[in-house]
Protein backbone atom coordinates (compact mmCIF):
# COMPACT_ATOMS: atom_id res chain seq x y z
CA UNK A 1 0.00 0.00 0.00
CA UNK A 2 1.59 3.26 -1.12
CA UNK A 3 0.32 6.78 -0.73
CA UNK A 4 1.37 9.53 -3.06
CA UNK A 5 3.64 11.97 -1.28
CA UNK A 6 3.02 15.66 -1.73
CA UNK A 7 5.76 18.30 -1.80
CA UNK A 8 5.42 19.15 1.90
CA UNK A 9 5.74 15.49 2.92
CA UNK A 10 8.87 15.20 0.78
CA UNK A 11 10.31 18.31 2.46
CA UNK A 12 9.57 16.90 5.93
CA UNK A 13 11.20 13.58 5.03
CA UNK A 14 14.26 15.31 3.61
CA UNK A 15 14.59 17.61 6.64
CA UNK A 16 14.45 14.78 9.19
CA UNK A 17 16.38 12.31 7.02
CA UNK A 18 13.55 9.78 6.71
CA UNK A 19 13.90 7.39 3.81
CA UNK A 20 11.17 4.78 4.45
CA UNK A 21 7.41 5.38 4.48
CA UNK A 22 6.23 8.32 6.57
CA UNK A 23 3.72 6.40 8.66
CA UNK A 24 1.66 7.62 11.61
CA UNK A 25 4.25 6.69 14.26
CA UNK A 26 6.94 8.66 12.43
CA UNK A 27 4.54 11.57 11.98
CA UNK A 28 3.77 11.55 15.70
CA UNK A 29 7.47 11.58 16.58
CA UNK A 30 8.19 14.33 14.04
CA UNK A 31 5.39 16.42 15.53
CA UNK A 32 6.81 15.91 19.03
CA UNK A 33 10.39 16.80 18.01
CA UNK A 34 9.17 19.73 15.90
CA UNK A 35 7.02 21.11 18.72
CA UNK A 36 9.87 20.87 21.22
CA UNK A 37 12.19 22.65 18.78
CA UNK A 38 9.60 25.33 18.11
CA UNK A 39 9.11 26.07 21.81
CA UNK A 40 12.89 26.32 22.35
CA UNK A 41 13.21 28.59 19.27
CA UNK A 42 10.35 30.79 20.41
CA UNK A 43 11.82 31.32 23.88
CA UNK A 44 15.29 31.96 22.40
CA UNK A 45 13.96 34.50 19.90
CA UNK A 46 11.95 36.33 22.53
CA UNK A 47 14.88 36.65 24.94
CA UNK A 48 17.66 37.26 22.38
CA UNK A 49 15.68 39.94 20.51
CA UNK A 50 15.02 41.75 23.76
CA UNK A 51 18.69 41.61 24.88
CA UNK A 52 20.23 42.56 21.52
CA UNK A 53 17.74 45.35 20.94
CA UNK A 54 19.07 47.13 24.03
CA UNK A 55 22.72 46.17 23.38
CA UNK A 56 22.42 47.47 19.83
CA UNK A 57 21.55 50.94 21.07
CA UNK A 58 24.97 51.53 22.61
CA UNK A 59 27.18 49.12 20.62
CA UNK A 60 25.46 48.43 17.28
CA UNK A 61 28.56 47.03 15.53
CA UNK A 62 29.38 44.56 18.26
CA UNK A 63 25.74 43.61 18.73
CA UNK A 64 25.32 42.61 15.07
CA UNK A 65 28.46 40.44 15.06
CA UNK A 66 27.67 38.79 18.41
CA UNK A 67 24.00 38.25 17.44
CA UNK A 68 25.07 36.52 14.22
CA UNK A 69 27.48 34.28 16.13
CA UNK A 70 25.00 33.44 18.87
CA UNK A 71 22.33 32.67 16.24
CA UNK A 72 24.72 30.32 14.49
CA UNK A 73 25.57 28.48 17.73
CA UNK A 74 21.86 28.23 18.55
CA UNK A 75 21.12 26.86 15.08
CA UNK A 76 23.83 24.21 15.50
CA UNK A 77 22.49 23.26 18.95
CA UNK A 78 18.90 22.89 17.76
CA UNK A 79 20.08 20.86 14.74
CA UNK A 80 22.03 18.60 17.08
CA UNK A 81 18.91 18.12 19.24
CA UNK A 82 16.82 17.22 16.17
CA UNK A 83 19.49 14.77 15.00
CA UNK A 84 19.76 13.03 18.37
CA UNK A 85 15.98 12.96 18.97
CA UNK A 86 15.35 11.50 15.49
CA UNK A 87 18.02 8.88 16.05
CA UNK A 88 16.68 7.90 19.48
CA UNK A 89 13.10 7.51 18.25
CA UNK A 90 14.49 5.40 15.37
CA UNK A 91 12.54 7.27 12.71
CA UNK A 92 15.58 7.64 10.47
CA UNK A 93 16.27 3.90 10.12
CA UNK A 94 15.62 2.65 6.62
CA UNK A 95 14.98 -1.08 6.53
CA UNK A 96 15.30 -2.74 3.15
CA UNK A 97 14.92 -6.36 2.10
CA UNK A 98 18.02 -8.45 1.43
CA UNK A 99 17.31 -8.49 -2.33
CA UNK A 100 16.93 -4.73 -2.41
CA UNK A 101 19.99 -3.92 -0.30
CA UNK A 102 22.48 -3.59 -3.17
CA UNK A 103 20.06 -1.46 -5.11
CA UNK A 104 19.53 0.78 -2.08
CA UNK A 105 23.29 1.18 -1.62
CA UNK A 106 23.58 2.23 -5.25
CA UNK A 107 20.77 4.73 -4.74
CA UNK A 108 22.55 6.22 -1.72
CA UNK A 109 25.77 6.61 -3.75
CA UNK A 110 23.86 8.30 -6.57
CA UNK A 111 22.09 10.63 -4.13
CA UNK A 112 25.40 11.50 -2.45
CA UNK A 113 27.03 12.36 -5.79
CA UNK A 114 24.15 14.69 -6.71
CA UNK A 115 24.10 16.37 -3.31
CA UNK A 116 27.92 16.54 -3.37
CA UNK A 117 27.84 18.47 -6.64
CA UNK A 118 25.27 20.90 -5.21
CA UNK A 119 27.28 21.26 -1.98
CA UNK A 120 30.51 21.81 -3.93
CA UNK A 121 28.93 24.52 -6.06
CA UNK A 122 27.48 26.28 -3.03
CA UNK A 123 30.83 26.16 -1.22
CA UNK A 124 32.55 27.49 -4.35
CA UNK A 125 30.15 30.42 -4.51
CA UNK A 126 29.87 31.18 -0.79
CA UNK A 127 33.51 30.87 0.38
CA UNK A 128 34.81 33.95 -1.52
CA UNK A 129 32.30 36.13 0.37
CA UNK A 130 34.59 35.87 3.42
CA UNK A 131 37.48 37.36 1.44
CA UNK A 132 35.20 40.10 0.13
CA UNK A 133 34.28 41.14 3.66
CA UNK A 134 37.67 40.59 5.37
CA UNK A 135 40.27 41.33 2.66
CA UNK A 136 38.11 43.54 0.36
CA UNK A 137 38.91 41.37 -2.67
CA UNK A 138 36.74 41.26 -5.79
CA UNK A 139 34.09 38.52 -5.62
CA UNK A 140 33.83 38.00 -9.39
CA UNK A 141 37.60 37.81 -9.76
CA UNK A 142 37.76 35.00 -7.21
CA UNK A 143 34.96 33.09 -8.95
CA UNK A 144 36.27 33.50 -12.50
CA UNK A 145 40.00 33.10 -11.71
CA UNK A 146 40.16 30.82 -8.69
CA UNK A 147 43.55 29.94 -7.25
CA UNK A 148 44.75 26.33 -7.27
CA UNK A 149 44.70 26.29 -3.50
CA UNK A 150 41.09 27.43 -3.42
CA UNK A 151 40.02 24.79 -5.94
CA UNK A 152 41.75 22.02 -3.97
CA UNK A 153 40.16 23.29 -0.78
CA UNK A 154 36.68 23.18 -2.38
CA UNK A 155 37.22 19.68 -3.77
CA UNK A 156 38.50 18.38 -0.43
CA UNK A 157 35.56 19.90 1.45
CA UNK A 158 33.11 18.33 -1.02
CA UNK A 159 34.76 14.90 -0.85
CA UNK A 160 34.85 14.98 2.95
CA UNK A 161 31.20 16.04 3.12
CA UNK A 162 30.15 13.33 0.63
CA UNK A 163 31.99 10.64 2.59
CA UNK A 164 30.53 11.82 5.89
CA UNK A 165 26.98 11.88 4.51
CA UNK A 166 27.44 8.52 2.80
CA UNK A 167 28.53 6.91 6.07
CA UNK A 168 25.53 8.40 7.90
CA UNK A 169 23.11 7.20 5.20
CA UNK A 170 24.69 3.75 5.05
CA UNK A 171 24.56 3.48 8.82
CA UNK A 172 20.84 4.23 8.75
CA UNK A 173 20.11 1.53 6.19
CA UNK A 174 19.51 -1.89 7.73
CA UNK A 175 19.27 -5.18 5.90
CA UNK A 176 16.12 -7.22 6.62
CA UNK A 177 15.76 -10.96 6.11
Amino acid sequence: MKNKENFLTKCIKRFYGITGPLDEYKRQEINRIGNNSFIICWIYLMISNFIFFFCGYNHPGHAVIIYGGVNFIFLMSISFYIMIASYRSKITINEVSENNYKNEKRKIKYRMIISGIIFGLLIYLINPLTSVVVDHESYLNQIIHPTKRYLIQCILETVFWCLFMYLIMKNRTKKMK
Partner: protein
Amino acid sequence: MNRVREYREKQGLSQFALSQKIGVARQTINLIENNKYNPSLNLCIRLAKVLGTDLNGLFWEEEDEK
Protein backbone atom coordinates in the same frame (compact mmCIF):
# COMPACT_ATOMS: atom_id res chain seq x y z
CA MET B 1 -1.68 -7.31 25.31
CA ASN B 2 -2.99 -7.25 21.75
CA ARG B 3 -2.91 -10.28 19.47
CA VAL B 4 -1.19 -8.78 16.45
CA ARG B 5 1.88 -11.00 16.83
CA GLU B 6 -0.30 -14.13 17.24
CA TYR B 7 -2.36 -13.42 14.11
CA ARG B 8 0.71 -12.39 12.12
CA GLU B 9 2.46 -15.66 12.95
CA LYS B 10 -0.72 -17.57 12.09
CA GLN B 11 -0.63 -15.97 8.65
CA GLY B 12 3.07 -16.84 8.34
CA LEU B 13 4.08 -13.23 7.87
CA SER B 14 7.22 -11.56 9.13
CA GLN B 15 7.02 -8.09 10.68
CA PHE B 16 8.66 -6.69 7.57
CA ALA B 17 6.20 -8.43 5.21
CA LEU B 18 3.23 -7.20 7.24
CA SER B 19 4.62 -3.67 7.37
CA GLN B 20 4.99 -3.63 3.58
CA LYS B 21 1.42 -4.88 3.13
CA ILE B 22 -0.10 -2.07 5.18
CA GLY B 23 2.38 0.65 4.20
CA VAL B 24 4.09 1.38 7.51
CA ALA B 25 7.62 0.88 8.79
CA ARG B 26 8.61 -2.42 10.44
CA GLN B 27 9.44 -0.55 13.66
CA THR B 28 5.80 0.56 13.90
CA ILE B 29 4.61 -3.07 13.77
CA ASN B 30 7.18 -3.97 16.41
CA LEU B 31 6.03 -1.11 18.66
CA ILE B 32 2.35 -2.11 18.25
CA GLU B 33 3.10 -5.76 19.08
CA ASN B 34 4.99 -4.73 22.21
CA ASN B 35 2.21 -2.34 23.29
CA LYS B 36 4.55 0.66 23.06
CA TYR B 37 2.48 2.49 20.48
CA ASN B 38 -1.29 2.89 20.16
CA PRO B 39 -2.20 2.77 16.48
CA SER B 40 -4.95 4.93 15.01
CA LEU B 41 -8.32 3.38 14.21
CA ASN B 42 -7.50 3.57 10.52
CA LEU B 43 -4.32 1.55 10.98
CA CYS B 44 -6.11 -0.95 13.27
CA ILE B 45 -8.68 -1.58 10.52
CA ARG B 46 -5.94 -2.07 7.92
CA LEU B 47 -4.15 -4.48 10.25
CA ALA B 48 -7.32 -6.46 10.92
CA LYS B 49 -8.11 -6.71 7.19
CA VAL B 50 -4.63 -7.96 6.28
CA LEU B 51 -4.56 -10.41 9.18
CA GLY B 52 -8.02 -11.73 8.27
CA THR B 53 -9.73 -10.89 11.53
CA ASP B 54 -11.70 -8.08 13.15
CA LEU B 55 -10.84 -5.37 15.68
CA ASN B 56 -12.29 -7.34 18.60
CA GLY B 57 -10.14 -10.32 17.77
CA LEU B 58 -7.01 -8.22 17.54
CA PHE B 59 -7.37 -5.75 20.36
CA TRP B 60 -10.18 -6.74 22.74
CA GLU B 61 -8.91 -8.08 26.06
CA GLU B 62 -10.88 -10.96 27.61
CA GLU B 63 -11.62 -10.72 31.32
CA ASP B 64 -9.42 -13.71 32.23
CA GLU B 65 -6.51 -12.24 30.23
CA LYS B 66 -6.43 -9.18 32.46
